[in-house]
């Protein structure tokens, strides 16, 4: 999919949680987050984390030098979940 879009001259970057699959498919550019399937942008209501993952991917797009590069992003699932829980607790206190 990503290769088909890139071949049409549109730069692409994907966010993956499955490194083995990505390595086999060889997309032009990808960033890896060590998160659970279906949670590529982190955890519910953690807006800052969701935003930063998007920006990490887009920054990587602008700096990639060779096709097939995969960047490991420095996020941590356990920490993301803890922060998500705190955010939800604060949210509940307010509402």
């Amino acid at each position, binding site marked *: *999919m990503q290769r088909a879009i890139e071949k049409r001259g*549109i730069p692409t970057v994907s966010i993956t949680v499955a490194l*083995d699959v990505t390595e086999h498919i060889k997309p032009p550019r990808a960033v890896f987050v060590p998160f659970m*399937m279906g949670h590529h*942008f982190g955890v*519910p209501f953690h807006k800052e984390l969701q935003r930063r993952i998007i920006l990490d*991917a887009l920054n990587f797009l602008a700096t990639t030098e060779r096709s097939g590069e995969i960047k490991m992003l420095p996020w941590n699932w356990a920490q993301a979940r803890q922060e998500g829980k705190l955010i939800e607790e604060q949210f509940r206190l307010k509402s």
Partner: protein
Amino acid sequence: MTAESKNVENDKQQLRTGLWATVNERYPGSMITKSDFVALAKSKKPLSESRLTFVSTAGVQPKGSLPFDTVHPIGDYTFRCVPSDSKPSDLEIHQLKYPTSGAERDINVIFPIERLQELQAVGLIGELAPNFFSFIGYNMDAEMLERTLAEDLAEAVEAEGSDVALLAPA
């Protein structure tokens, strides 16, 4: 141990080594393996002037559109357009093959439509393409996927004049 090397360790622990070979043995031809790299397309503009589209395999679709066929034995090779100005309440998910526990509470964890709208509003992204695109990742005939869905979707992305595409294969 630095924070970075610790994360690399974590990443290694999460690799499902050998899984790929097992799946391909059970369902020959269902997995794509490429040995070549496609040439990198060059960004023509900075992000703040670019039109961005988002492509997802999460099975997210506007309420009222034809639901993805999540139980077809060889998969569903169609895609849905999701207007980029949609609200989360306009959308629903039809896909069984990944955990949607987070997405059901906040769709932005897999389809970050509100975050992209915010990044556009503050000018970090130039503009959003009129539509984002979504399909389901359960497609057992890899060759057909490349021949039909991948080309159809790439054509739709190109037709909307997108400068950059962000993808999230669920």
